[in-house]
């Protein structure tokens, strides 16, 4: 009968232990109620193996078998994917908004005003071709137009260089994160190896991968033993077990902009989402496309004006020359370098040929003016070509904004679902706390009763 003396006490002790551990979990959960990425932990209780004595089976109490951090890895994956999209769109929008400010025609910023002013100065010249002040007006308008092209192009180059710096910064941030993830990866597999709850480390890793997703497209493969292998979606390795593979940057020999390398391979064009992709998209596609439209506009205009001026006769009776410095033959850099070839207002060839023409003739001035309605820029009039560019810039930002908004709603929804699985609910924890407290009190009461029974028994044998 010796088991009767000790067994209930042992059983109760185990039970009291289990209850206090459950209370510890409640405290941990409540303490982490606002911790980003924290997944609530729940106890997994198991009835301990009963003992068989004769024909009777006696329970031996309860055991806290394990602790589980509740999380849904599919949701985690979806959150990471949406975060990548958001990262890319945010980066695109942030510079895109600066670009569109350069062309904000709603408040008079942009090239429409100087472009129109150039042609209206020619219209004025047409009504008074021999007047030197009117001619000076044409040169001034041409100079203003050239300045506007120069400034817009230079502002775009500045934005491109700033974005280039951001690319390098993003790569540094990616490397910092992958090195942290590699360290946590090791911890996850070592804790998991011992059979304990690796949940807190997985929380931490998911939080870091989520931050990484904001920067670059991440694809994760379960490497077994709790370890994750991370690559870019193009397959460039980022983290394998406890090792991280740094991305590097290297100046492109042609553009001078930083290309992104992984293990000696240029992966600049293979990065498909995340902040880095948005920055590369702005730097390597959006800005160059706008620059090239501006170049086409500047060079088409300068060449046409020069050709038409050469067809006429200037105020000195000589054949007309160039108004603008001839732009580069392929047009590249035309907007940045557009400049006047003359400061002499008499050099505007308002009169028709042949020399010496005549001072009051406006035939060629009219022909110069008519360029505004001719399809001299890739099959479009100068103004329509510019309006098309304005539309493209606005539309690119506008569609990025609407995608960002839609994606933001999806992300929020996913985060709500994630919270539903992993979030700590104070009410729920409070209820558990009360439940465990009651159970603890009950167990304690039982042990007091057993104690008093024991005392009574002992008193029976008092001499």
């Amino acid at each position, binding site marked *: 009968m010796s088991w009767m003396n000790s067994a209930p006490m042992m059983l109760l002790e185990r039970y009291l232990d289990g209850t206090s551990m459950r209370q510890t979990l409640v405290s941990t959960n409540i303490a982490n*109620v*606002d911790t980003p990425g924290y997944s609530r932990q729940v106890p997994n209780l198991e009835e301990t193996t009963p003992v068989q004595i004769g024909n009777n089976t006696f329970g031996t109490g309860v055991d806290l078998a394990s602790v589980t951090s509740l999380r849904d890895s599919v949701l985690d994956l979806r959150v990471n994917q949406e975060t990548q999209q958001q990262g890319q769109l945010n980066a695109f929008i942030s510079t895109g*908004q600066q670009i*569109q*400010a350069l*062309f*904000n*025609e*709603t*408040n008079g910023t942009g090239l*429409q*005003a100087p*472009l*129109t002013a150039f042609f*209206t100065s020619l*219209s*004025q010249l*047409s*009504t*008074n*071709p*021999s*007047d030197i002040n009117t001619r000076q007006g044409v040169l001034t308008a041409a100079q203003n137009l050239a300045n506007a092209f120069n400034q817009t192009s230079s502002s775009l180059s500045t934005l491109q260089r700033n974005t280039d710096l951001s690319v390098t910064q993003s790569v540094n941030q990616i490397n910092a994160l992958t090195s942290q993830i590699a360290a946590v990866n090791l911890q996850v597999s070592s804790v998991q190896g011992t059979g304990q709850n690796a949940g807190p480390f997985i929380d931490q890793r998911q939080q870091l991968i989520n931050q990484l997703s904001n920067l670059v497209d991440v694809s994760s493969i379960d490497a077994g033993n709790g370890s994750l292998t991370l690559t870019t979606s193009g397959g460039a390795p980022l983290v394998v077990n406890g090792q991280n593979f740094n991305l590097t940057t290297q100046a492109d020999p042609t553009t001078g902009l930083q290309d992104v390398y992984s293990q000696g391979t240029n992966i600049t064009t293979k990065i498909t989402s995340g902040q880095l992709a948005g920055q590369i998209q702005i730097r390597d596609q959006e800005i160059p496309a706008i620059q090239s439209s501006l170049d086409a506009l500047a060079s088409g205009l300068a060449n046409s004006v020069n050709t038409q001026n050469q067809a006429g006769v200037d105020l000195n009776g000589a054949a007309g020359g160039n108004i603008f410095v001839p732009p580069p033959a392929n047009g590249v850099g035309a907007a940045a370098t557009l400049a006047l070839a003359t400061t002499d207002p008499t050099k505007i060839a308002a*009169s028709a040929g042949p020399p010496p023409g*005549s*001072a*009051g*003739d*406006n*035939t060629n001035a*009219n022909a110069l003016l008519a360029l505004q309605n001719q399809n001299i820029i890739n099959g479009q009039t100068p*103004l*329509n070509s*510019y*309006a*098309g560019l*304005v539309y*493209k*810039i*606005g*539309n690119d*930002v*506008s569609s990025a904004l609407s995608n960002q908004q839609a994606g*933001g709603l999806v992300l*929020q929804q996913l*985060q*709500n*679902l*994630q*919270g*539903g*699985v992993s*979030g700590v609910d*104070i*009410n*729920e924890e*409070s*209820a558990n*706390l*009360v439940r465990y407290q009651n159970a603890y009190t009950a167990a304690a009461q039982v042990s007091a009763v057993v104690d008093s029974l024991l005392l009574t028994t002992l008193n029976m044998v008092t001499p």
Partner: protein
Amino acid sequence: MSIRLDPNLLPGLLASIQQSNQQLTVATQQLSSGRSVNQLSDDPAAVASLVGNHNQASQDDQYLQSISTIQARFQVADSSLSSVVTALTSALSLGVEGANGTLTPANQQSVAAEVQGLISQVQSLANTTFQGSYLFSGTAVNTPPFTINSVANTTTYNGNAGVTSVQLSNGNSVNGNVPGSQLFLNGSGSVFGALQGLNAALLSGTNIPAAVTQIQNALNTVDTQRVFYGNVLNQVSQAETFLNQDQINLSTQENALIGVDPATAATNLAQATLANQSLLDASGRILSLPNLLSFLPNP
């Protein structure tokens, strides 16, 4: 058992508040700027149309300026020609006076001298300038168009037959001048020829009636040519009306493209304000809701 919801309401509330604040900002911006489109991405197509709209408005401004230049120039030209008509009418009466045969040769000489005076007067009218340019020398605007050799009694035209074309509005242009040769040395209606012929006839006392007929022809020619100026001035004033109307249309169009109706904007702002306040009020209540812990007895 129901689906477990995200117990953390804060991120959702914050997102809603942020969105509501954004709507408030947009409503305020629209009302204060008077525009519903403040940057390209607000409405790319509207801004692209705006580029054309602003261009057209500036062109119209320029056309209106051109029109006022043309009007001023043509008024000066027409008034010169009107003075030429007066001079020719005087010459006509002098010629009739000389032709009636009652004048002594000495009187004829003095009438001839008066005609000579008229010739100089017409010459200076034909050499009229406007803003430094000769009005009647074709496109050779820096050259005085007419020189007179009073010894040989001949007139030389130093201008050319050039005619300029000036745009009044898109696709609508008019001739900007009439060459002096067409006005003053126009074949049988030549003004200078007629005056110089009358002068010679008076001096010689012969063929005076024929010279008077020539003066009459010249008068007819000038009258005919003046019609051109009248027509162009009419055309110009029609173009002016059109451009003023076009500017109103463009301004209406601009308003339709990027403007905002003040009443709508004010209503939007009021709604956004109300929504924002309600949201903040609700959020405040939700966040200060007690939880189960508040009801647990103190140990």
